[in-house]
Structures are given as structure tokens and as C-alpha cells.
């Protein structure tokens, strides 16, 4: 039995220790907003927050995640600047990579609330979006940063 803390709730799951956290979140906790893209930590579709940091849940075992504070896209408030900016800028196309990318952006903004263009590119150069929404991801990040700058209030 493994104990997990996800989005402020406690869960106990009966899985082998080496099961990737991603599949526990999706198949056992039924939080399917976190996506499977590659299984090797290359694309970022599975990104969640572990103790506030963006991590690739497909390459972290459930055992490694035990006892730590995990947040998934479902746990990011609807009023979160990133979620608001993603709607405002219409960043999303198919939407499959969006939750993971948004989690990575949320972590970036909590570390660096006003990232410049170079910082944005460096921080987001390890995600893949096949629809090609990159220019809007950049725009979304700038808009989210503005919302953060205004204390979460929309302009």
C-alpha cells in the first residue's frame, strides 16, 4: 500500500512500488487531466507539481512520490492566472499537451513571476506541442504574468 497526497486529498493505492506516478494518478485516482505522451520524460504532457516543483510524472515512481505534496491540473484553481490566460489567449488547440504545459508554466511563474523572453524560451524548451501552439503559449505566459503582477486581478 502506498499513501499519496494529491490535490490536498489523501489516497492509499495497492500498486507495485515501481509503477510510474502518472499511471496511478490516471488509472487509480481517475484524475485523467494529466496525460501520457512519451513515458520517458521528453514531452511534458504528464507534468505535475511535486512539492511545488514541475516534475514529469511518467518517470517518477509512485514510491518516490509517497509522502510528498502532489498537485495535478485538476488541483490548480480555475482562477489561477495560467488557466485564465490560456482561455483569454485561446492557447489551446487539441488540448492534449495543455495540462502538462500549464503546470510547467505555473511552476515557472511561481519561481519567476516576470520571466523575460529568454527565460520563457529556456524554461519551455523541453515540452512538445504537435498542434504548434507555441506562439500562443508564449503569449499566454506573458498574459498570465500580467495577471500575477496585478495580484491575480484581470486587467
Amino acid at each position, binding site marked *: 500500500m502506498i499513501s499519496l497526497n494529491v490535490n490536498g486529498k489523501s489516497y492509499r493505492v495497492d500498486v507495485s512500488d515501481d509503477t510510474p506516478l502518472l499511471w496511478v494518478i490516471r488509472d487509480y485516482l481517475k484524475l485523467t487531466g494529466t*496525460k501520457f505522451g512519451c513515458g520517458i520524460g521528453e514531452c511534458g504532457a504528464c507534468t505535475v507539481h511535486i512539492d511545488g516543483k514541475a516534475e514529469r510524472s511518467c518517470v517518477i515512481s509512485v514510491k518516490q512520490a509517497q509522502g510528498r505534496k502532489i498537485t495535478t491540473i485538476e488541483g490548480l484553481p480555475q482562477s489561477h492566472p495560467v488557466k485564465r490566460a490560456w482561455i483569454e489567449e485561446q492557447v489551446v488547440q487539441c*488540448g492534449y499537451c495543455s495540462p502538462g504545459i500549464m503546470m510547467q508554466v505555473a511552476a515557472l511563474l511561481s519561481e519567476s513571476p516576470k520571466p523575460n523572453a529568454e527565460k520563457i524560451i529556456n524554461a519551455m524548451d523541453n515540452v512538445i506541442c504537435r498542434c*504548434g501552439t507555441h506562439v500562443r503559449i508564449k503569449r499566454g505566459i506573458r498574459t498570465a504574468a500580467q495577471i500575477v503582477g496585478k495580484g491575480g486581478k484581470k486587467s
Partner: protein
Amino acid sequence: MTTSISRRAFLKGSLGAAGLTIAVSVTPFGSRLLNASGKEEALSGFKPNIWFEIKPDNKVAITVGASEMGQGTHTALAMIIADELEADWKQIKVSHGPAAKEFKNPILDDQLTVGSASVRAFYEPLRKAGAAGRAMLIKAAASTWNVPESECKAEKGTVQHKKSGRSLAYGKLCVAAAKLQVPQDPPLKKESEFRYIGKPMLRLDIPEKVAGAAKFGLDVAIPNMEIAVFSRPPAYGAKPISFDQNAAEGVKGVRKVVPGPQGIAVCAESLQAALKGRDALNVKWDKGTHPQLDNDFIEKSLIGDLEKPGAKVIEKGDPKKALGEARKKIEATYFVPFVAHATMEPMNCTAYVRDGRCDVWVPTQGQLVAQFVASQVSGVPPEKVQIHTTFLGCGLGRRAAPDFVVDAVLVSKEVGKPVKVVWTREEDIKYDAFRAAMSHRIEGGIDDQGRLIGWSHKVVSGSIMKDIAPQAVQGGVDIMSLWGLVDFPNSPDNNRIMYDIPNLYIEFLLSDLPIPVAPWRSVQNGPNAFVIESFVDELAHAAAKDPLEFRLQNLKTNMRASRVLETAAKKAGWGKPLPKGQGRGIAQHSCFGTYVAEVVDLSVNEKDGSVKVNRVVAAVDCGPAVNPNTIKAQIEGAVTIALSTALKEEVKFSNGGVKSANFADYNIIKMSDIPEIEVHIVESKEKMGGIGEPGVPPTAPAVGNAIFNATGARIRRIPFTPERVLAAIKDRRI
């Protein structure tokens, strides 16, 4: 009409609540409307492609057959209905309909979401349908109030009688309106009265996608569902020599091993157990049919085939004579490699075969083909096969194929439980049907005025239609492989070479490589436009003309192509000098009824061969714009994925199979390579074209032309990797 039963059953279910339902039937011969309110019998003989229902709670529920994969079709179709209906946008909801012949797109004659065809096929009919609903609601209100219809006006989900200050919401009127006859030719709005059409509307599916709540195929969960993964052949044509079924079935959580035509499935209670079971299976495969196949073999085969005789596709004028008499004649050989779809959601499907029925939950671009193969594999008649379409984690053409449906139905039938088949990313790339690799040889000639007078072109490629519509491959010619150069006769899509060339010869040879190919965003318009537009640039150079001027001179009869070229050039500052090491290139192409031109500004580092694209300016004429927000997004996305093919993507092969396995060794464009992308929509009253694909073709040639402009090196093969750019620069100096 077997499938209409399930469609009617579906309608019956959806028509439980009393309300006004308008069904629209669109065929290649015109459209018809029906008041389908609560009376399924009214639908016998009537074949709606789309319908919408206004319910007493004011909600407007729209059901469409087209799949939503991020291209914004559901929103655009809803905008058209809502605008003419004068519906309140907040009350609109769109759902995927079931598989049904009635859902066929009239342009495609199939229920397929391909060919950038959904909005343009349904624009006029849906305007009529919405307007009919509005007329009926007005009539219902006028008779309720006992006032003339002419004094009533529909506005944002209500009918108003200004004189008396009365107003009724559509929800209050829908029951009365449901009893009225549907007008076949209702008055349409003037364009100036549009409330939604032409405005940048927010997509309806984005909020649930941002919340993480949208359901994709991999998110499907059915009670008692099991998970299956497949062990698949490592080389083309490889067969299993041995595998250890007992070892696999001995793994904790594994239920059953199921051998099938596409591989050997391991079905388990969890994905983790299925993957462990697959490892334990330890399949030994033979070497397959082409053990020597690798990238070198492929390139030699396709280029070598250029020496073999092909089939004549077009012969216009006297190309031989024209080329012989040309003031200048040049010849070039081009090559385009295999490219993977690699949609972010790997292929998957969930099926449940039991009690003479079969349910399939699948992110598909082709519901009818999914239904057909599910019926064939399960033995369940098609009318008992229900296709539940989920959101698609990108499609790109890959999801029109039904191979993943075969997997899931086969295993579910065998184990008698709901089964979700998950493809790992490695399988998704290795067992893709790729964008076809091609080789081209062209000769082109110009006269002393710089006019294109002769063009002779030979293409070698695998067949795209061989698996989709084998009867369409005639005399050894696959027109879809030639799209961009040649289109089907009288096709309004204009997937053909746009230049005025009086003497034109096109020849085609089918490659016999065993590698499966399939449509990939814009189909072969992409690779073929790369070749055409690069070669046109070579001709402009030979004519000592500016590339834009040369194109305009040879596109005199094509105003739409000229206009997008001029717009893109103007917005990009064509002709303005650039610093050393930078270059600017232009290209245009038309496909799926839409015209696009793009100008690329880039920098080339001549020391390491790296290319940095700085800016792409696109101009698009797609006829009337329904949702400019989506049009811009689609062109941005198309430019981005096309840049990825221009700079990065090439599938690697070895030992008779695919070597590329995951994103670690299949390069896709990332944030640091993304330029600024500007999209200009040219105002146009022309016939509406598609928007999902036409942004792709001009990008790669515009990049190549810009590299030539920056360095003087012409590269006739994508991707423009640093090694290839460096080699071309070296070559130039010799």
C-alpha cells in the same frame, strides 16, 4: 439502410425532452431541412448530417458528425447555426454524433474529418437551418401574442415585440415552434447583421480542456475494463518465430495473451501489468521481407526509381519542344523523407464486445470506417456497433485509419470484457503510416522575357490511396500522392500547380518500398509544394528576376494566388535589405480551396550550419472567414509543424524496420526554434476554402528559399539540418 437504425435510436434518445429540433440534410446536390421535433418517424428517408435542438431550459444542443481535434470545427459550425438562429452563445453546446451514413460530409462522401472540409461543406446549409429555426420561433411568438410576425424580432435567444415591450425566451417558445412546418428557404441575415460569423469567437471546447476535464480516448474508463498492449513486429513483414505465453500469463495481473494479425496482445488488469507481461512474452521475430532496409536504402531506391519509366499523368502542349527552345533550361532532383504523425495522444481505442453488440470509444477522424472494421472483426452487424467519438489529442490524418480499432475489438471479443488498447509512444512512431517520402526530377525552361514556357516533372512515391481507396489508383497513378501538382478532374480544391505553364509534362512512378504511407496534414501538397516552390525560385534566379516578381509574372491568370503573395510580401517588408547572414524567402501554394503565401526571414550561421527562423508572415485567402481566431490559430499551427518538417523531422530506419522510437530520437520543433508568426487574412468574397491544412505547404520552400537568399546555397532536400546546410555551403564554394 442499416446504420440509420442506430442513428434513429440515438435521435430518439436525444429527443426525449420536448423542444424544437431542426435536422439538416446536406448532399452534393443540395440541402434540405426537417422539423424533427420528437418524431423519429419523420426521419425515415431523411438523412440529416447535423441537427440542433432548442430545449425548454433555453439550451441549444448541436450534434455534428465531424471530429474535434483542436481545429475548432465544433465552434465554427455552432457559430454558423447560432448566428442565423439568433441564439444566445452562452446556451450553445456541441457534441460528437454517432457513426452514421447520414453524417457523411458531402465534399468527401464519407463521415471523415479530413481535407479541411467541415466548415466549407456545411456553411450554407447551416445558415439556412439556423434561419429556419429563427423564423419558426418568431412565428410561434407572433401567434402567442396574436401580433403580426413582421412586428417581432429575434435577438440573442429571445423573440421580442418592441411595440408592447414583450419578450419570450426561445425555451418558452420551442414547444410551440416544434408544431410548425420548417421553411425550406427562410430569409438569411445580411452579412452586416452577423453577430458571430466573422468575429473572433472563443472556442467552446477550451474551458474544459484548460480545466483538465476534457475526455480524450486514453481517458475512457468503463467498469471492469482491462488494459492491453501489443508486441509488434520490429521489421516490415516480420512474423513471430516463438513467444512465451506461459511466462506472460504468469505475470501478476496479466489475464490473457491474444495473438492477432497486427501483433500479440497482452491483456491485464493494469497497464503496468500488461507492459510487464509483454516483456515476459519475449517474442522472437524473423527478419521480415526487407532486412537490408535503412535510410540509405530508401533514398537510393526512390532516387534510383527516377531512372525507370513511369506513367504519364499530364501532357499539355509540347514540353519537349518548349524545353529545347527555352532561353534557359535548368534541371534538378529533390528528395523528401518519411515524416511521422506523432500526435501527442498516442493511438488508442477502447472496445466492449458482448451480447451481440459492440461499443467502441475512440478518438477517430473516420467514424464509418471505424464502425465497419469493428463490425468485421467482432462479427457484430454494423447497426449494433456504436462508435463513441472522444476528443482527439491531435489528428493530422493519422486518426482516419482504423488499425487501433482492430486491436481493441479483437482483444475485447477474445476476453469478453471492455478493453482499452494503449499504444506506447514507441509503437505510435514505429507503427505509423508516414507522410510519404518522395523523389522528384524536374526540368524547367523560361523564355527571354522570364516566362515559364516548359515544365517536365517526374515523381516517385508510395501510394497513399492504395489502402484507403485502392480502386482510385488507376494506371499506376495515385493522384493523392500528386496533390499540389495534379488534382482530381474538376476538383474545387485546386490541389494543383497554379502557374501558367503552356507546356507541361508530369509523370508518376509508384515506389515498391514496403513502408506504409498515409495522409499527413495537407497530404502531399506539403512535399510537392516544397519541390515546386523551391524550383520556381531556382527558375527566378536563372531568369535573374526577383522571386516575387517572377511568381507574379507567371501567375497572371490567378488573382487569388497573386493577391496573397502581394499581401505577404508587403506585410513582411519584401525588398527591404537584411543584414549579412540573414535571408528572406517567399512561397505560395493553394490547396483545399484556400490560397496561402508565406515570407520567411531567417539567419544562417555559416560556421555551424544552424538556421534560425526569425519571422514568418503568412497571408491567407480562404474566402469568407467564419472564425478569424481559429483561422489564425490554424495557420500558426500549420506553419509551426511545417517548420518542424523543414528543420528537424525525418524517420530513421534500420534492419528492415523503423529505428526511431520516441521523442528522444525523433526530433520535433521546440520553443527555441519558434519564430514570430504573423497571419493576415485577406478579405475575400470567393468560395469558402478549408483552413486546417493549407498553411503547411508554403513554409518549407520559403525556408529553403530564404537559406538560398542568405547563403547562395540551394538545398533540395529537407530537413535543413546543420550538417546538410554546412555541406551545401561548402559545395557552393567549390
